[in-house]
């Protein structure tokens, strides 16, 4: 049995995969590990390139392939099914880990286990957020307090590629929801915390990975539909919170998808989503517009 499986979904981005793979190679944690890639129906040339990169790497890389493009949730399920490691860490092709990430996270997991906790634990990290062509901006994860609430407000960002946990703890959450073409991470995190799971941070509060962000090709209406589905799916949880809290989630949802629409030059939808956001909470909307000088 391998100690750690690094789980990488991939589609048509061999250069992004290479970037991610280099960051795995540079890890200071040198335990027994394999990189498991599931290709989700890339073109023949992209897949060929992926295999060449995998073969040239000093890491043990295992490449699997979906027979056709089946989407991110299906691919993540395939990764989890094929994972051989006692632990799993996620990494999306195109994102990077900093060298200390795994070492710090293993230490954090063990530190938690010394406290005799019975809770399932995932270790997340603070991270850098970098728009294409922009500079890195550090983001902090709020793990204190009510983590379900933190996930819903975004104070605790649901990003799989920040995580390290036992493979069993990921499997215990269940399958990734195939209906969620976007935001399947958020649903997965919510299910984990709702079942009593706990997210912890390493001692070192510095960012330990970087998210190279781009909204291009991510349609606002698709993200909106996924938000709506998640809120419906987790309605029982949402109902535990106040009306104001729920209204603000709707506000944030519309404000959030407006950004996707705007970054994809969809002006009518951008305007529509902003109007919907303003309708849910005009005060916060105005405040944010002033603060951001009209930018999303």
């Amino acid at each position, binding site marked *: 049995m391998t100690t750690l499986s690094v789980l990488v979904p991939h589609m048509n981005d061999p250069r992004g995969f290479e970037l991610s793979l280099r960051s795995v190679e540079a890890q200071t944690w040198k*335990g027994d590990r394999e990189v498991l890639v599931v290709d989700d129906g890339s073109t023949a040339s992209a897949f060929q390139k992926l295999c060449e990169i995998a073969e040239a790497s000093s890491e043990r890389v295992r490449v699997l392939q979906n027979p056709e493009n089946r989407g991110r949730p299906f691919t993540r399920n395939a990764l989890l099914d094929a994972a051989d490691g006692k632990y799993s860490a996620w990494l999306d092709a195109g994102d990077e880990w900093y060298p200390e990430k795994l070492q710090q996270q293993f*230490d954090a997991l063990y530190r938690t286990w010394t406290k005799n906790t019975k809770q399932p634990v995932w270790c997340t990290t603070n991270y850098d957020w970098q728009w294409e062509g922009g500079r890195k901006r550090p983001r902090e994860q709020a793990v204190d307090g009510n983590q379900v609430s933190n996930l819903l407000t975004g104070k605790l*960002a*649901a990003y799989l590629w920040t995580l390290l946990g036992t493979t069993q703890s990921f499997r215990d959450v269940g399958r990734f929801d195939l209906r969620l073409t976007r935001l399947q991470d958020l649903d997965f995190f919510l299910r984990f915390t709702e079942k009593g799971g706990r997210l912890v941070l390493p001692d070192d509060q510095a960012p330990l990975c970087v998210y190279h962000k781009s909204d291009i090709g991510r349609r606002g209406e698709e993200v909106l539909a*996924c938000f709506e589905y998640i809120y419906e799916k987790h309605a029982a949880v949402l109902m535990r919170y106040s009306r104001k809290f729920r209204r603000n989630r709707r506000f944030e949802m519309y404000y959030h998808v407006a950004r996707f629409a705007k970054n994809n030059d969809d002006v009518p939808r951008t305007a529509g989503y902003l109007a919907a956001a303003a309708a849910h909470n005009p005060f916060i909307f105005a405040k944010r517009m002033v603060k951001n000088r009209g930018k999303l």
Partner: protein
Amino acid sequence: MKIEIVSGFAEYLRPTTVDPTLYLPALGLENETTVVAHARWLQGESALGEHAGTLTSSRRVRLLVEYLADCAPRHGTVVLGLRAESITAPVDGGRAFAELVDTIRRTRFVAEVESVSRVHLRLNGNTDRVLDSLAEKLDMKRPRPSEPDRVALAGCPARIVDIDGQTSTEDAYDAMVRNYSFSVLTLASALVDRKGVFGSEQRGRLIAEHLVRSEFLIRPDVTAEAFEAELEPGAKLYELLTTPVPTREPASAESDDSGTSSELCA
């Protein structure tokens, strides 16, 4: 998987601040499949030193062994650094160490255990004696075994590693000189009472760190007696220090040595 337990590691080699690639060759552990398990999650706890924590319960020992197994590279070696007193302290240290070794042996992942009883720096005869003297005074270790080749600790074969400028690389040697001085200063700080030159152990450690950072080192010609004499209130410890880092002595001179959700993922 093989586990190397290195006693005296924390004092002499300071693995938390020095790159392992520097000191592993000096220990004869140079191998691309060798890693050092820092076990930072147990730091700050005392019984087995900063790398093993208060392993008073078998659960903690089991966790430590699991951690070592997780850290081990494929077909490689993992090094666990312990303080010297973790093994040689009269009661607690020895018992905890025996428990650790026993657990390692019971773990199916572990193929072999080798214990290094003590890293004995042979940088300079005088400074080495200073450290020995201080450590003995603190009752931190027992006298060296008379037959070092036949040492066994808790049933483990053990060997004594002598590190000197001849066997280590240039960088490792310099790093160890720095670590060595740090060790002496830290031990010295533990010796003095609140009215002493350091005021408190914590302050002594801070001073030691500052001195080492500033490249002040214990002068090679300082004797144990002179050093100890300077640990009294009103002492002038700085007179025993030198700067910058001394060059390596020639081989012949070696004596003995409000959040928003705008970042929700999509």
